[in-house]
Each structure stands twice: as C-alpha cells, then as structure tokens.
C-alpha cells in the first residue's frame, strides 16, 4: 500500500489578475522506504503541490483533489485538527532556509523539546534524553552543549541538521524536504544529502525531495517526477530518466547541464520547445 497517494490535485490562487492555476492535475504516490524526487524549475508548482497536500497554504488558495490519502486515511475528509496532528507527527517537512525556519528567540534545544512535548507523551527528562539522541543521530557534535545554543550561533548546515532532528523527533512515516540544500555550500550539501538518505534508509521512511537541481536528484532519488508549469510531464525511475528521458523537456533540461555541454554552447529549452510539444507527451 502506498504511504501517500494523491490523484488529480489542483491548486488555484486568487490574484489581482484573476485566478492562477499553480498546480494542474498532479497525481503521485510514495511508498514506504522510497525516495521520490519532484524536480522542476521555478513556477512549476512543485513546492505548492506538497504544501497543498499538507493543508499549509494560505486562504487565497483553492485546493481540490480526487483523492488525497495518507497511510490509508482520507486527508480531504479529515478535520483541520486531525490533519494538524498528522502533519508534524507522521509527516514532517524541512525547508530551504534553515536559519529562517528556526525561531531566533529560543535555543534549539527548547525548540526540539517543544516538538516532542506537543507530539509525544514524554516527560521533561525523557524529552531531554530524546533530544540528545536525535542530535547525535543527525551528526551534531557536542550535542549536550549545542542544545543550549541559539540559531544565530550556528551555521546554515548545523541549522539544517537541527531542522532534520526536529522533523525526525516523532519518527515520521514520511519526510518532505523542500529544497533542503539550496541555501547551503556544496560540501555541506553533500553532508546533508548523505545524512537524509542514510536516515531514510535506517528508519524506512518515505522521502519526498523537492528540488530544481538535477545533481541532487541523481545523488538521492529512486523515482523522479518532472513538473513543468504546474503539470506532471514525466515520471520514471532515476536511471531510466537520466539514461532515456521520454519527454522533450526532460531531455532539454538534461542537455542544459553544463556537464553535458557539447563544445562552447549549451542548448537551451525555449530555443527548442513550445509548451504544446512539452505537454503532448505528458502523462495525466
């Protein structure tokens, strides 16, 4: 059984220039223990789709779906209260800006214990022990001392580790990582990606990796969904996607990588393709 199953998800925003369809009929499923990468450029609706599924969008968004199930439970029929309980405990998210995602007024130890307090029945002592354990798990050295630090005292990579620790606090079944390494340096990115994949395998979690970076996809994913202008245009396992991409846009995207450059020039997408050509081969 799939962990998360979404069918025909549509998200519309009310804007000054009329309704804007950010996600247009996206379907996807994630199995336990699987790494799914959703890849797309800005405006492809990749983050919005996940935020919508979690019910985390502001009131201007209108979200509809034929089916939205997590672990066999219907998320559409759920009350807001129940959904909030599921999101955070069984589904955890980490975001692009680790330093901005942490509250600057509290120590990181307080913040992780707060997560534990809300979602688990642990007492103060047990929470402290669990927090230490989590910090060691995500590879923060001198965990005891680090618990008393404020976010601004830590580097971006360390903050992202804290965010991962917070996300793991309740042993979630699904972890959604929205551009988790975009704001980080290459060497730190490597560490964080390795950590995420390692923890995912260890806990048997489902992991959704939202990214624009083909390198991140190649380094982490089992299966890949390519999105373009709010629509899913290709879905394949990672090797097939890189070896034999079906959709013209995916092919163009891969050939635009500087690594794959032939001679001095890079082929670019708008020179080659129109929207019709891209959507022609898209699965619904």
């Amino acid at each position, binding site marked *: 059984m799939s962990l998360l199953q979404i069918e025909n998800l549509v998200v519309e925003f009310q804007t*000054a220039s009329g309704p804007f369809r950010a996600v247009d009929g996206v379907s996807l499923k994630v199995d336990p223990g699987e790494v799914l990468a959703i890849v797309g450029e800005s405006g492809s609706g990749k983050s919005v789709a996940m935020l919508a599924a979690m019910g985390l969008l502001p009131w201007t968004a209108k979200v509809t779906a034929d089916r939205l199930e997590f672990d066999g439970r219907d998320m559409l029929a759920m009350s807001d209260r129940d959904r909030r309980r599921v999101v955070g405990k069984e589904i955890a998210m980490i975001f692009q800006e680790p330093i901005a995602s942490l509250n600057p007024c509290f120590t990181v130890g307080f913040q992780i214990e707060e997560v534990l307090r809300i979602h688990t029945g642990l007492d103060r002592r047990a929470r402290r022990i669990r927090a230490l354990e989590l910090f060691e798990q995500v590879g923060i050295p001198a965990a005891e001392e680090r618990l008393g630090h404020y976010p601004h005292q830590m580097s971006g990579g360390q903050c992202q580790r804290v965010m991962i620790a917070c996300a793991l606090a309740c042993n979630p079944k699904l972890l959604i990582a929205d551009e988790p390494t975009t704001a980080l340096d290459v060497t730190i990115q490597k560490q964080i990606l390795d950590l995420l994949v390692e923890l995912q395998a260890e806990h048997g979690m489902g992991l959704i990796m939202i990214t624009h970076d083909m390198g991140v996809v190649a380094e982490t994913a089992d299966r890949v969904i390519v999105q373009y202008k709010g629509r899913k245009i290709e879905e394949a396992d990672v090797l097939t996607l890189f070896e034999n991409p079906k959709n013209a846009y995916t092919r163009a995207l891969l050939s635009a990588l500087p690594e794959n450059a032939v001679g001095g020039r890079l082929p670019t997408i708008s020179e080659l393709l129109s929207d019709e050509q891209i959507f022609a081969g898209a699965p619904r």
Partner: protein
Amino acid sequence: MSTVTTQTGHPSALAEFWYYFSRNKGAVIGLAVFLLVLFVAVFAPLVAPHGPTEQLRDKLLLPPAWMEGGEASYLLGTDAVGRDILSRLIYGSRFSLFIGLVVVTLSVISGVLIGLVAGYFRGRVDTFIMRIMDIILAFPSLLLALVLVAVLGPGLLNAMIAISLVNQPHFVRLTRAAVMAEKSKDYVVGSRVAGAGTFRLMFLTILPNCLAPLIVQATLAFSAAILDAAALGFLGMGAQPPTPEWGTMLAEAREFIQRAWWVVTFPGLAILVTVLAINLMGDGLRDALDPKLKRS
C-alpha cells in the same frame, strides 16, 4: 536568440493598487468619507446654507431641526451667538484639511531631507541628528506644541509650524530606516560602480524606493495634525475666534455642555469622523503599498 515570453496580462500598477486597496472595506469607506469632506471643503460657499459668521440675534442656541423648537433651515441648530452650526462645520472643514495639508507638507519635506542625510552618511552626522530627534520625541507632543505656540504667539500659522516640528521626527526615523535598508542593495552599488555621485544616489536612486512607507505615514500624520490643531484650538492657542475651526468651536461651546449638547457634540463628531476616515484610509494604503503584507 529567442527570449522567454513575459507573463501575459500584467495588471497596471494602478489596477493592482486598487485591487489590494479595495480588499479592505474600511479603507474604501474611509476614502468615501474623506472625499465627501474634501468636496464639502472645496465647495463650502455653495454647500453651506448660511455664512459662517452670520449672527441671528433672535435665534440663540436653537436646537437641531428634528427636535422640538428646531428650524429646518438650521439643520444642526445654532450656537450661543446665533450662528448656524452646520455652516460653521462646513467652513471649518476647510481649515482642518488646510492644516493637515500644510503640516504634512512641512514635516514630510524637512523630515525626509534630514532622514536621508542621516541614513546615507551615518556616523557622527547620524548620531547627532538622531539624538535631537530622540529629544523631540521624548516630550509629550501636545505639550511641546503648546510651548512652541506660547513662544511664537497663538494663531493658526504658528500652530501649524509647531505641529509640523512635533510630527517631523517620525518621518526622519522612517526615512532613515528605509534609506539604510535600500543603501546596501545591489542596484545602489551598481549605480555607484557606474559612477553615480552622492547627490544622484541619494535623490534619484534611493529616495524613490523609500516612498511607500512614507505615504502611509503621511496619511496618518495628516489625521494627527487635524487632531493636534483641534486640541490647540480648544486650548485657545490655535485658530482664534471667530474662525470656524472645529477645535475652537469646541472651546467656545464649553460652557453650554449642560444646556445645549449640540453645540459641542457636532464639532466633536466632525473631528472624530474625519480623523477615523483618514486613519482607515491609511490602513488600506499600507495594505496596498507595503509589499511585505501583500498576499499573492
């Protein structure tokens, strides 16, 4: 080489402004009331049924029209010397709006200039300017205005100068903060690399990008100015009788509170409604102009 097509159907800046502004119902009501007040002020001689200083010796303290003993041609009644209150209020709106306009103009121009200098040059200049502003802000504003008027002598013009001076530190601080935030942005550095001088950077590059919060503050200062002017008028330090200024009208009517409630109530209401309308409008402006609050 082909280019990426821009998003189609970009709404014009004005349409976008109106979209966000009109989402705030209070702001639209505020705008409507303000426009009404403005209309009445501009066409006062045509709208008002009587002259503002015209006295009717036989009709002292006439109650409003709907009460017993009221007369239809004196809709809101008359005051202690037989002047039509409605007409005086209508002429009074001219003074209130005029005061607001002059005060805002004076304090915006001086405040923005000083704030720009402080925010751009920083260092000693900044410290010196900001300490003076702190001192001005440390006084209760009305008290400071009173002292200034006492020194300059009572009168509408002096009251306006005093109120401007009291209002101006807000603009200095706001401008300074905005300038400091803009100054480090890449486009300013880019202009510098292109060789732009200090004057150009300050006035042509940075200042236009700091205007949005200033416009909001200006509307709020407008209402504050009306309020302060009314307060000074009430204390006898602003416009002098028989000028139909709202605060002065209140002061003249003080002794009739018990006998003739309308003489005090209507000028008070006029001040309340106008100030409220402008404040609501300022809220809407902030919604529309402050990109941080924009939801899209």
